[in-house]
């Protein structure tokens, strides 16, 4: 699928998505790792998956990274299809985290992904906010049910000033919006359904270590067409 997506459109995508965070407004904690009290299994249709991704191969509230807040559905027969489609906006890769999904053999699997982001080593001189999403599926590289077709789940967050002082990471809700906007450019506005399903991972705005949580708990669904 070839569309004329201008550089300005991509720049506007990220300029409007970022939320200015007053760091004094969120209470810092001494937590070394993030914790999420809403960690649970999400059962949708025939399948099941965890509603957060993880920093290690261990399902625990203090091992979560970010909430699952995106679903790419219909024709995601391989996660690389989505990555490639959105490469115009997210052309860098990040560190690897782990998603926990089931759709194969009745068992749960870890799926690793380093995701895609729009900038490396973000900083106030070049670009402060790097928007980063990671996408997960089963070992078959896809999940399938009769309602969503072939799909994959994703988490998202912002890496703010990674190569600078006062760096933080988080604001998943804003990153979700940025990915949704990029997807709207690629797949069309009608393909994006903001906050369609509740994944029960609401996170109020707060700081926990270097994590700044913000997620409304509702996942945005993005329809990937079956044809080029």
């Amino acid at each position, binding site marked *: 699928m070839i569309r004329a997506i201008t550089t300005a459109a991509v720049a506007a995508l990220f300029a409007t998505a970022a939320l200015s965070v007053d760091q004094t407004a969120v209470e810092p904690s001494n937590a070394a790792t993030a914790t999420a009290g809403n960690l649970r*299994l999400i*059962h949708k249709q025939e399948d099941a998956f965890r509603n957060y991704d993880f920093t290690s191969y261990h399902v625990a509230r203090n091992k979560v990274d970010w909430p699952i807040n995106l679903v790419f559905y219909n*024709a995601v*027969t*391989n996660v690389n299809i989505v990555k490639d489609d959105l490469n115009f906006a997210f052309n860098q890769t990040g560190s690897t985290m782990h998603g926990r999904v089931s759709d194969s053999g009745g068992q749960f699997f870890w799926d690793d992904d380093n995701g895609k982001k729009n900038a490396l080593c973000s900083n106030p001189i070049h670009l402060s906010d790097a928007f980063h999403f990671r996408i997960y599926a089963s070992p078959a590289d896809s999940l399938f049910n*009769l309602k969503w077709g*072939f799909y994959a789940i994703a988490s998202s967050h912002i890496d703010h000033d990674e190569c600078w002082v006062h760096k933080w990471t988080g604001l998943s809700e804003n990153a979700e919006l940025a990915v949704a906007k990029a997807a709207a450019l690629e797949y069309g506005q009608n393909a994006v359904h903001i906050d369609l399903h509740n994944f029960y991972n609401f996170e109020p705005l707060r700081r926990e270590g270097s994590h700044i949580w913000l997620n409304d708990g509702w996942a945005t669904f993005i329809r990937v067409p079956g044809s080029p």
Partner: protein
Amino acid sequence: VRLVGALTLAVGMLALLSPPTGATGGGVLVDRVGDWDLSRLGAPDLDPLVTPEQTESSAPFRLPPGSTQGPRRWYLIHMHIVPEVSLQSGSGLLSVIGSTDDHAAAEATIRVSARPGKPPLLRWSTFDLVNGSRKGTAHGERLDLDTQNYLQNRGVRGGANTLTFAVKSYGHVKVTRISVVRDSGIRVSNLSPPHLKLDASIPMRQVHTGDTFCLPYRLTDDGDRAAVRGAIGLQSLSGVLKVVGRRSRKFRRLAGGKNLTGCFHVHALRAGKARIDVSAGAENANHPAVSIAGRVSAASAPAQSSHSSPLASPLVVAIAAATGGSLWFRSRRRVQRRSPTDS
């Protein structure tokens, strides 16, 4: 590198298609159980058909008014393709998708790895509700892939529909052609997809520390098709109970209407609240689960020997549920709420 739309591949796909004699506008009416292959849908001879620049082709068909996916009549897509990759192909990914009304239902993914001086390595996979996940590897330039899957719910509607086969290519894959074999098409069936139902419970009785008891289960496929490559497992979610022996049982095939029975052995380590989750699933089926919660009470006599029957134990007294309260184990089914071996 993105090459979709600027494909170097020459894709041979199904050409379409003037309706056959008797068909009205919008294609052939698919109104009976059976195979509606491309010929029956009105397609001419399709194989091979090479059309440079062409990445998709469509065929119209019609369904009777009020058609839905199940519960009595089920619609499937059958995709039989022969992709051919150039010996000079670079590495990349090829995805062939069959869909109705742009609701994807059949997929074949081919990873192409270029090897200097050798034919490319082709690693393919398909995934569907009939056969589950299938994978394979081939050295060469040609594959023959056959897959069928249930249409998405929204891919079935009364009136005019469109069957489409499309190719997406990523990386440096160079395809010679992809043929859609003429036995591809729509299948109408009375067979529902596999659907697993799980029963697991402890007879209403008291459990004391030291008891080792059998937790019986019955996993039934109440769909028509077989569930393939699945498992049933359990997990104790507290330190009160410990699973003794096998925590899971795998199965290769569970035919429609058949069941799988057995039991897991669980040992009560100490008094307190306890919970056990029993769950199951298969590659091509749902993931039912049962959660059993209750309380283990302290033993009033020396602990029972391992693997003793709780009902035969003098410490274990079966009484009516009404008197159970929190001291008694109760089970509640939570269909599709948990899956095995999650930790």
